[in-house]
């Protein structure tokens, strides 16, 4: 009887976490396409392939982490009440959501960085061409 509430907890936790990860990753890489095209200087096929690969990596990391922190360890002689189930679940789901947000911002930071780097190198390669009078 005591185990059944933990299993209910898992059944609530897993769908929420997996659907959240899929949604965030879909949105992130749908909007990140522009950055990728900028980073690869307009070579669209390479940019889209890299984007897809990064998306798969994002899924793997986040769903793997979600499964790693799945375990609910709760021991009590009087059984588990719904209140403690809610509290444990809120800690797990809220913590995972914060983690996902931080991952999103890190990814966004990398996008910006890659974009500004590729722009810098573009400027560096075009400048000498302008200066040499041939």
């Amino acid at each position, binding site marked *: 009887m005591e185990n059944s509430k933990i299993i209910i907890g898992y059944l609530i936790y897993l769908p929420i976490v997996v659907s959240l990860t899929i949604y965030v990753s879909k949105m992130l890489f749908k909007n990140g396409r522009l*950055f990728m095209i900028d980073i690869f200087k307009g070579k669209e096929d390479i940019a889209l392939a890299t984007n897809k690969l990064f998306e798969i990596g994002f899924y793997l990391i986040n769903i793997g982490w979600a499964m790693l922190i799945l375990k609910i360890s709760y021991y009590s002689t009087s059984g588990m009440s719904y209140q403690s189930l809610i509290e444990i679940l809120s800690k797990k789901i809220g913590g995972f959501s914060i983690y996902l947000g931080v991952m999103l911002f890190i990814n966004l930071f990398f996008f910006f960085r890659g974009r500004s780097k590729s722009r810098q190198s573009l400027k560096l390669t075009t400048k000498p061409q302008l200066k040499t009078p041939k």
Partner: protein
Amino acid sequence: MSYNILSYSIYIPVICFITVKIGWLFYKHGEIFLLNIFEYNKTLVNSVNNLLLIGYYLVNLGYAIFTIAYWEHIESINQLINTLSTTLGRIIILLAVLHYNNILILTYIIKSKSLKQ
């Protein structure tokens, strides 16, 4: 039904409403600043704005849900109101601080950009 579960069922809708509403307002009114920063590149600004909104929702709602885990044990209606208002107030003040921080960063970026030109 214990008082704790009652307080959770009041707390979650209120905080979700506040967070979503504020995020939406920032999303709409912050676009003009982003346009200024990204040299009026409309599609890029749209995607950046979307991602910022999603990140904001994830972190804030995540934190709001996370606080439930450390909720104190409630035994009376009086205590319920006290705890609810303290927690809500703390999160709203946190949001306000983050908001002013954002405005400062935005003005700083725009100033340094206009100095460069």
